[in-house]
């Protein structure tokens, strides 16, 4: 038994846990972060998997890290340095490509090559999406009001939200409603004709979900991209120097600078609850640590079924958590390369290798990739989002060598017959073989290959079912429904026990918003 006493203990040193800890420590609270792995970061870690080659093992780009967090915690001073990731190319099956570049005029001319009509439509579409994103953006910084509640604070929040949406005007409100309910394919069909363009745009709507581009509800995720653009002035979209682990390190450094303690290799066994109140945590080692507040940054299943006893919780919450969908659907392949891939559509070295390469040649291609997953198989020809971090940050690989990060969709957690070493290899082979259709020299360059299935993601990070967003970003489990109705305000039914992380509002990505909002809620109640 330890006599150490803290104001707050954060379970899990993922980026949201670190943000929460930094805000609590900044407000003068004695704060401790407990991370079970030997490094902080959760799914935002950089590891040298192969000697001399560094990988953002899981999460690999930054898009929605909240500007207020960057400012409040002075993250640039602690090592945050986001490098521009300026372009995306989509290699096409006919040997051509579709490019999107840093310069909007250049992008427009490129699109014009494929469809002059779409080139015009893109500008108008961009404006509409700008308005949609502006409409939704305040929600990211808001504790969700509960429409079922009559508390003055909830009512005030709902009235503000209602006023906000009314101010949009009918046209934009209708567009927002469509965006929230349609499939991304249908939504994009209303605007564009060039199929690879629609496919590439819709791909952002399927990442991390168990949906295809033709599944209703996939359209709204398109917004995320444009929300990143609204904060574009801040240039917080891109590739972190040193990989995403360096973001976690910068958050840890900021937290420590305010006096927070961070312990790694300290897995939490359970939250100590006595008299309906959280009193502290018990570590796997048997050590007990006491605190007035315990914040779980783990996913809702861990938070409500492993760390505490369901008997401590109301039935409707238990039922809600049991129904909450994880269904990890993404995998990751990390390659150490002896040289640069040579794309048939754009041979040799060039600016396109400093940006993303999207393997999304058509909507049908993506939908078929989903079909495989729907029936329990990994996609034989998956959607892939590829970056070569060493082209942007030469420190990621030895001089002249490269690292490649391949995000892969779909790889269902519940694979027919279950995942095995052989299945993992077959999945890795499918990825490399698919890429080789567009960059034939890829196989000859591979020095080392790391393949991560949802099972591996779950095993290494603890994310249930390997879902990268701590649960699907689907409409039925967002905003005041995330993770479950009535418990979307970072509180739990256990007094002093709090939740943050991607499994709470506003969801996934290296955003930090839930960590901040949870900390502010705790501070609000305890002056």
């Amino acid at each position, binding site marked *: 038994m330890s006599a150490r006493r803290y104001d707050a203990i954060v379970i899990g040193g993922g980026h949201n846990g670190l943000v929460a800890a930094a805000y609590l420590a900044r407000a003068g609270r004695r704060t401790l972060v407990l991370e079970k792995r030997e490094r902080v970061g959760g799914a935002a870690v950089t590891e040298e998997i192969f000697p001399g080659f560094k990988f953002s093992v899981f999460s690999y780009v930054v898009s929605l890290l909240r500007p207020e967090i960057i400012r409040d915690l002075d993250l640039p001073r602690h090592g945050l340095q986001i490098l521009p990731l300026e372009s995306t190319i989509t290699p096409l099956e006919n040997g051509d490509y579709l490019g999107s570049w*840093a*310069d909007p005029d250049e992008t427009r001319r490129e699109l014009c090559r494929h469809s002059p009509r779409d080139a015009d439509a893109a500008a108008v579409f961009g404006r509409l999406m700008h308005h949609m994103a502006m409409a939704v953006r305040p929600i990211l910084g808001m504790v969700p009001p509960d429409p079922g509640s009559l508390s003055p604070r909830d009512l005030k929040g709902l009235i503000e939200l209602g006023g906000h949406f009314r101010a949009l005007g009918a046209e934009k409100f209708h567009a927002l409603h469509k965006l929230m309910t349609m499939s991304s394919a249908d939504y994009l069909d209303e605007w564009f004709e060039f199929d690879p363009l629609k496919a590439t745009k819709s791909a952002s709507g399927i990442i991390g979900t168990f949906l295809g581009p033709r599944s209703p509800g996939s359209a709204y995720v398109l917004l995320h991209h444009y929300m990143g653009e609204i904060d574009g002035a*801040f*240039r917080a979209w891109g590739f972190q120097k040193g990989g995403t682990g360096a973001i976690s390190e910068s958050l840890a450094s900021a937290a420590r600078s305010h006096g927070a303690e961070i312990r790694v290799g300290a897995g939490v066994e359970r939250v100590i609850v006595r008299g309906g109140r959280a009193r502290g945590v018990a570590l796997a080692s048997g050590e007990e640590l006491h605190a007035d507040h315990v914040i779980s940054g783990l996913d809702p299943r861990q938070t409500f079924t492993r760390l505490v006893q369901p008997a401590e919780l109301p039935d409707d919450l238990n039922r809600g958590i049991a129904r909450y969908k994880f269904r990890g659907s993404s995998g990751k392949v990390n390659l150490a390369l002896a040289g640069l891939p040579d794309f048939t559509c754009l041979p040799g070295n060039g600016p396109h290798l400093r940006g993303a390469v999207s393997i999304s040649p058509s909507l049908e291609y993506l939908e078929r990739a989903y079909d495989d997953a729907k029936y329990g198989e990994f996609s034989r020809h998956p959607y892939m989002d590829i970056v070569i971090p060493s082209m942007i940050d030469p420190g990621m690989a030895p001089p*002249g060598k490269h690292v490649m990060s391949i995000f892969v969709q779909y790889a269902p957690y519940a694979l027919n017959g279950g995942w095995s070493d052989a299945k993992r290899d077959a999945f890795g082979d499918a990825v490399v073989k698919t890429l080789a259709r567009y960059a034939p020299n890829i196989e000859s360059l591979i020095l080392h290959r790391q393949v991560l299935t949802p099972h591996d993601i779950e095993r290494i990070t603890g994310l249930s079912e390997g879902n990268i967003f701590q649960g699907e970003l689907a409409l039925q489990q967002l905003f005041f429904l995330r993770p479950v109705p009535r418990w979307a305000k970072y509180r739990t039914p256990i007094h002093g026990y709090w939740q943050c992380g991607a499994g709470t509002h506003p969801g996934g990505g290296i955003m930090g918003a839930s960590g901040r909002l949870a900390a502010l809620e705790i501070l609000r109640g305890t002056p």
Partner: protein
Amino acid sequence: MLKTSPFHARTAPLVRAQTWRRWAGYQMASAYDPHPDREVAAIRNAAALIDVSPLYKYRLAGRDAARLIDRMITRDVTKLKIGQVYYTPWCDAHGKVIDDGTVTRLEERVYRLTSADSSLRWLQMNAFGLEVEIEDHSERVGTLALQGPLARAVLTAAADTDVASLPYFRACQTSVRGVPVALSRTGYTGDLGYELWVESARALELWDALVAAGASYGLSPAGVWALDIARIEAGLIMLDVDYYSAHHALIEARKSSPLEINLGWAVSATKGPFNGRAALRAERSRGATWGFVGLEIDWRSFERLHAAHGLPPHVPNVAWRASAPVYADGVQVGYATSGCWSPLLKRLLALAHLRAPYFRPGTPLEIEVTVEHRRERALAAVHALPFYDPERKKS
């Protein structure tokens, strides 16, 4: 006709959007890409190659070379060792700054002086009665700045001799793949970096050698737009942008003393006679009436001004060089002369001249900004310069 730099044959094909600018009578690249974001990132993340050939360069040699320089500059050149570099301003007889630049002691009695503006006449006037040979090398020598955290790695890979141990503000002679180069650990970015001085005739060979060696280190050519953002982050002042030369200022109010432009540290209190000594001593004892400092513009305030129009905040991706009034309690107390959004620090920065006592760090002020065609005032606070000062600069 504008002149072209000795590296022009290599740089010109890389300027994709023909974004050129005038710089001291030369046609120089503003940026190679249509937007400078990547070039800015190269300076702080990898390595950038910047053509700074329009700088004026003079070779001063002879028995009285040191006396000439000592008479001119505000620092004590008798303490400058062979292979050492000074950054320094120089003044007129009234202690007002004419220009700023570097002095390098190349040999016992040989020095190189660099300046932003042509300095030949001033050198000759100050050399009256002295035994010193003044040669204008401005066109004979091309200059490349190799700047960024990986600059040393690139140079080590390219140079024929061991240059890795060259300390900050020191210079030496080396060769790069057979091309003789005068090397100095200097620059205008506030980062780890070097400047390489090469005979114009061999400039292209040097460019090619550095580009080849830099391929594995993310070396990127960078233009003046990127350099401008880096120098503001580093708090480095620029002639004709942040201050006027005493030789060109049309009115007295436009002249500045070194104490007024944050260069008081470079005015020796102990050295012998030099231009402006008496005026600067007097000014130091009574205290400067102006200060040159950093301003950080409050982002929330800036965001609010945009939100009032339903707009997200907008910042240009190049530095601005228009004068902006600065206020304290509604009264103008100074003006900012340049500023930028720092993609590195995620802050809005400006360099400003402020009246005493408003230049103390932390002083709350307001700065004029134009938002949606309206002149507004955003909150700002004084920040000591530099804004950014990485350890590697001197390590």
